[in-house]
Every structure is written in structure tokens, then in C-alpha cells.
């Protein structure tokens, strides 16, 4: 009997091990500390670290060789990492940039884990999203850059207000080098076939809605969807913040109602694909647009380079989507055209960095005009936008040749998809959850918005 009980207890502890998965990987650090082998290893690691710290002090004066370890993702499929590193190394021969690819899927989670504890040796890290940025700031894993910015006189105005939205208690911990803003992609062939004039750079949401309906054809076999909304909450919820008076951090979300109504009505009338279908199929927006039956789609500017590359390589059928263009986002009544959403990708210097000055030089260079030129040449959108950069991008092969498309690159107001807030990761997941509930019809728009209000206010007032 005793044996039986023992085996039951052992079985339970095994169950526990399976369940306690979350605690376990988080605690490996402290667990490892008890391991003597690791402690000695750490001591060995610490010794050279001290010497490099001493070297770092000298480095400010002469150009001694420095190696910067840089956290990135998707090195193979993203053109600009290598381009930026090579250009910087060419300009600064004493610096070696060592890139570490953490993969894009869980990049910020992996990075936060890497920077937890004191075993990290990254010098510069790429910041993929704002919740991840908030995490790193709260973990004290990255350095405030204010002193450097002041000392080197970096003009933050060139980032069109984006940096203000990621300032934490008056301090800035990252500088953006890439900025993707949202535009409206459209398929010119579908407009021509329907005999409808192309969308313009100055449309209100009502005009946009009417245009989408005009293009829609629900005939079986030759369907045309006037619009397409990917399953992200950004595609619907964030249309509402473009008036500049509301923010997703407000805790009051009634202002989103008209936009949910517009999209759900479009869905009901067959103007766009159904959210539940998209969710079940996992249909990627690029597949939807390149399939040639979507007339208009709101998406980030990163899709511009995807379109250009894949049309050139023949991966997308140019008879289906080869004739495309972009225009500025539609806007609410009485709001300036060109207000749009943006997502910045930034660079930060880690607190664990032994050569913060050298790391800062790299961050400043990449996020400044030098880096911007490199970015633009690879067809990506740098955070520093000026007419030169616009000309560069619009002049790339495969970019739509009409004047409207080039003009669409002019952004008047940029609102980040998620501005910084200490609780933005939590708020983000609440908004994501109820966006799903509203779009899949689990909740009415009113109920969903009421639930967002309650839950987000609970987070804010905690």
C-alpha cells in the first residue's frame, strides 16, 4: 500500500513538472546558480568582461577594435541587416558587427529571456514592438539614451513624433531606424474592369466604404471583394485612432464602434471575406491580395517591398495582381489626409554592454540619415523620411509608377499602433481578445466594447 502511495506521489510530482512548465524555464537561472559548475563558468566569464570594460574606457580616445553583438531576426530573408552592418563596418573599420538571429516568431520573448539575469552579452538589440520594448525597459535591460542624444545633438524631430510615443517617464530607450506606416493597396485591374475610378489620396471613410461596395461582385465563380481586413486588430480597431483624439490606451473604447460597424456590415454584405473564415484558414493577407480578387486592402508599407520582390521573382502571378498601386489611408471627416498608423523598429543599447559608447555610435548611425539611405536602397522604409528617401523608394524597380502612389508616401501624422505605456502588453492582449470576440460574432459590438472598457480600466487602476 505504501509503495502504491509513493508511486502515486511520484506520479503527481511528474504531473507537477508538466504543469509547472512556466515556472521552470523562468527559474533555470536561479537553479543554475546552485550548480557549482555554472558558478565557476560564470566567474571565468566575468573576468574577461572586466578587462574589456577597462579597454572600453580607452576606446573613446583611439580606434581600438570593438565587436558589437547585435540581436536581429530573419537574417536570410531580410535584406537590410547585412546591408546596414556592412555599410557601418566600411565606415568604421575598427568595428565588427556580429549578428545573432533570434528568429521572428517569438523574437521579443526570446530576447527578453536572453537579457534576463546577468548572462547576456548582447550590446545592441533590435526592438520589434512596443510591448516588448516596455518589457525590456521594466526589466532594466536597456539603457536610457537621453544623455547621448543631448550630447550628440540628435534632432528627434526627424522621426515625425514617433519617438514621443515611446518615451518612458521622459526618457527614451530606443531610436527607430525603420518605420512602417499603413497605406491602402489596390488592384488597378479590378477597378478598370468595373469601370470605377481609382481611389485617391484624400478619401473619407464613407467614400472608402462606398467605393468598396461599388467594386464588390458576389457572383459565384467571379467574386470580387471590395476590401480585405486581415485578422489583426490593427486593421479595424486602429482606423478609429486616426482622428488624433483617441488612443488605444484610453480605457474608453466607444469611439471604435463606427469602424466595427462599417467592417461587420461589409462582411455581412459580402464586401470582404469573413473574419471566421480567415481565422480558420489562416489565410495570409499577401495570399489574399495576390490572389487577384481583392480590390483594396489596408496594410503596412512593408508589403510594398514584398509585392515588388515577389512580382519580380514570379512568385505572384502578375496577371492577377501585377497592376497595383497605393494611396493614403482613408480619414475621418474633418481630419487631414495622410494621417496613418505606424510601427517603428528601433535599436537599443543593453545595460550589459561593455562598450556603450561604441554601441551608441552604431545606433545613432543606423537610425540616422546614413542608415536611412541604406534602408531605402533595400526597398524598406527608414524612420527618417525625407524627400530624398521617398525618391529612392519610388524610383525602385517595381514600385507603382503613378504619381498618386509616390504621393502616398507622404505622411502627415503618424500614430503608433501601440504607444508606450507601462501596462501596454496587458492592454494589448485585452484588446486582441475582444477584437476576436467581436469579429467572430461571439459578442456584440457593444458588449465587446463594454468588456474592453471594464478590463482595461481594471488594468489602468490597479
Amino acid at each position: 500500500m505504501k509503495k502504491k502511495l509513493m508511486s502515486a506521489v511520484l506520479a503527481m510530482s511528474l504531473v507537477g513538472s508538466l504543469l509547472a512548465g512556466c515556472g521552470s524555464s523562468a527559474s533555470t537561472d536561479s537553479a543554475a546558480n546552485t550548480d557549482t559548475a555554472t558558478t565557476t563558468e560564470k566567474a571565468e566569464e566575468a573576468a574577461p568582461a572586466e578587462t574589456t570594460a577597462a579597454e572600453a574606457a580607452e576606446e573613446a580616445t583611439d580606434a581600438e577594435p570593438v565587436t558589437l553583438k547585435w540581436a536581429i531576426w530573419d537574417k536570410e530573408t531580410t535584406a537590410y541587416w547585412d546591408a546596414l552592418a556592412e555599410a557601418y563596418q566600411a565606415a568604421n573599420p575598427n568595428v565588427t558587427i556580429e549578428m545573432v538571429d533570434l528568429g521572428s516568431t517569438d523574437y521579443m520573448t526570446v530576447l527578453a529571456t536572453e537579457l534576463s539575469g546577468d548572462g547576456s552579452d548582447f550590446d545592441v538589440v533590435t526592438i520589434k514592438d512596443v510591448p516588448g520594448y516596455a518589457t525590456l525597459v521594466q526589466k532594466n535591460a536597456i539603457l536610457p539614451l537621453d544623455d547621448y542624444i543631448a550630447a550628440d545633438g540628435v534632432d528627434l524631430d526627424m522621426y515625425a513624433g514617433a519617438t514621443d510615443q515611446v518615451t518612458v517617464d521622459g526618457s527614451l530607450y530606443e531610436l527607430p531606424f525603420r518605420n512602417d506606416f499603413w497605406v491602402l493597396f489596390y488592384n488597378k485591374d479590378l477597378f478598370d474592369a468595373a469601370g470605377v475610378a481609382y481611389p485617391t489620396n484624400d478619401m473619407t471613410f464613407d467614400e472608402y466604404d462606398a467605393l468598396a461596395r461599388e467594386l464588390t461582385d458576389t457572383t459565384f465563380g467571379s467574386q470580387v471583394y471590395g476590401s480585405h481586413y486581415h485578422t489583426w486588430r490593427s486593421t479595424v480597431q486602429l482606423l478609429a485612432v486616426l482622428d488624433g483624439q483617441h488612443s488605444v490606451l484610453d480605457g474608453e473604447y466607444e469611439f471604435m464602434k463606427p469602424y466595427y460597424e462599417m467592417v461587420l456590415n461589409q462582411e455581412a454584405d459580402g464586401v470582404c471575406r469573413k473574419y471566421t473564415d480567415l481565422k480558420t484558414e489562416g489565410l495570409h493577407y499577401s495570399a489574399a491580395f495576390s490572389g487577384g480578387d481583392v480590390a483594396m486592402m489596408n496594410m503596412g508599407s512593408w508589403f510594398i517591398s514584398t509585392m515588388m520582390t515577389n512580382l519580380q521573382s514570379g512568385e505572384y502571378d502578375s496577371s492577377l495582381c501585377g497592376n497595383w498601386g497605393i494611396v493614403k489611408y482613408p480619414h475621418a471627416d474633418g481630419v487631414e489626409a495622410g494621417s496613418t498608423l505606424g510601427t517603428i523598429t528601433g535599436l537599443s543599447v543593453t545595460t550589459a554592454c561593455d562598450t556603450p559608447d561604441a554601441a551608441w555610435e552604431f545606433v545613432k548611425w543606423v537610425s540616422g540619415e546614413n542608415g536611412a539611405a541604406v534602408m531605402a536602397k533595400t526597398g524598406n522604409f527608414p524612420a527618417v523620411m525625407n524627400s530624398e528617401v521617398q525618391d529612392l523608394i519610388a524610383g525602385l524597380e517595381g514600385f507603382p509608377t503613378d504619381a498618386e502612389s509616390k504621393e502616398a508616401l507622404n505622411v502627415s501624422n503618424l500614430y503608433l499602433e501601440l504607444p508606450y505605456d507601462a501596462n501596454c502588453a496587458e492592454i494589448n492582449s485585452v484588446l486582441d481578445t475582444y477584437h476576436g470576440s467581436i469579429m467572430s460574432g461571439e459578442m456584440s459590438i457593444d458588449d465587446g466594447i463594454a468588456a474592453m472598457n471594464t478590463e482595461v480600466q481594471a488594468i489602468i487602476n490597479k
Partner: protein
Amino acid sequence: MADQASAVTKKKGLSRQTKRDLVAYSFIAPNFIGFAVFTLIPIVFAFALAFLNWDGSNPITFAGFDNFKQLFSDTFFKAALKNTIIYCVGTVPLTMIASLALAIVLNQKVIGRGVFRTLSFFPYVASLVAVTAVWKMLFHPSKGPINNILYTYFKVPLEELPQWFSGGLVLLSMVLFSVWKYMGYYMVIYLAGLQGISSELYEAASLDGAGTWAKFRYITWPQLQSTTFFVVVMLTINCFKVYDIAIMLAGGGSGELTTSATVLVYYIYQKAFMEWKLGYSSAVAMVLFVLVFVVTMIQFRGQKKYAE
């Protein structure tokens, strides 16, 4: 004297039994050290963590029972708990019944028994990702054959076609899926149990004029008691741990679950690694642990009583 004494103790310390033990320990050590470092210590730490606040980097602060108190007012935790329990209550008995029925049928001498056994076991072998993709096609809300049949032959209006992967039906889809996927595995376990029952018992029962039902009721079922206990415990544990099925069926491309499909393990992951509230998520994990522990203990007790 003193030397002698120490020599004695030395000898005692290295007695044959101790030596034998040391050899045994040295064989166990590699595995046990791994288990201790990667499983045992983290489990103990997770217990402690439930009473602390920690984000993985900043100093740990003491939270007392705050994490547990917060659970009561947490909408998402309550939804996850409710969904997990509903999923378990649906899956455990259904899988057990289905696998037992399959085992009994396929234990008889039917033609093509081997083929059918393999077929029933196949879903268990197939990759979860692949078969969820197939299920998603079959149950696709507008293009799937299931809804097409409902629309064409049962005249269900277009707007009323069931949304299998959202709202109230998503848990049902999850239950059906896991019954289908795992019944083959438990069928094999039941088959082994069935083959362990002596055929003399059935012969004796036949002589006494027992029918099929009576044989099942008085021979098969009691004889399978320990198998059933094992099956139910494993099923319960696996059900409470559910994560992959929910993510694959209801998560869509981005792997986000709404309140109608969220489960405890998903919530633990979200709290721990998306929001870095390791203390709070450990508290949720403790709730899960206690749940599984209590359910298993009840079954354990019940089985013991039955055996006596």
C-alpha cells in the same frame, strides 16, 4: 584505540551495503541530476514563485497571497478555468467510452481486425498540426463539407450555419477532436487489459447462462478496473494540460485565443512570457496543479475502495 575506532567506522562507512548503494546511486545520478536541475528544482521554485512577484530580471518581491486573491477577480482566468473544466468533463468520459467500445469490438474475431485496429490507432500517430488542418477544412464555416451538407440537405440557413471554431461551439469541436485523436491510443491499452482476462471466466459464465451484457457487467468491467483507472488518470492529466489543440483549432494564424476558447495552460504562458508576471502565472499553475492532484486523488481513493 582511537585509530581502531576510526578504522571501524571507516569500515562501517564502506560496508558492502553502502558500496552497493553507491554503485546504484552512480547509475541513477546522471538521470537524477538532470531531473533535479531541470524539473525538480524548477517545480519547487514554481511553488515559491506563486507567493512572489518577479519579472525575470528585477529583484523578487514578496507577494503573500496577493497573486491568489487576484485570481478571483480575473475575467480571463475564470474563463480559462471554466473552459478547461468543461473540456475535461466532456473529453474524459467520452474518450473512455469510445476507446473501451472500440477495444471490445476489435477484441473479437472479426474479419480485418488488424486493419481496423491500425485505422483506429492512426489518428494518434498522425501529426497534430496536420490533422487539425484537415479538421479545419472539414469544419470550415463557409467552405467546409460539413456545413455544406447542413446547408444543402438539412436546409440550415446560411447565416445560421454553425461556427465550429468560435463562440459556444469551439469547446465542442475541441472535445470531438480529442476524442477522435486519442481514442486509438487508449483502445490499445484497453485491448491489453482485455487480453489479460482469462477466457475461463467467460466460459464459466456461459455455462451459467449469462448474456453478453451480464458478461460485460460482471466480468469485463470489474476485471478492467485497474486499466480504467490508468486510462482515466492519464486522460484527466492530459486534458487539463490541453494547449496545442486549442491553439491549433481556435488560434488562427496569430495563435490568440478569445475568452470562449482560452485554456489554463495558454493563460499561464501568456501571463508568464508575454507579460512577464511569473509570480502570477505560477499561481495559475498552482491552481491547475491542485485541480489535477485532487481529481487524481479522488480517483485513486475510489479505485482502492472498489478493489477492496
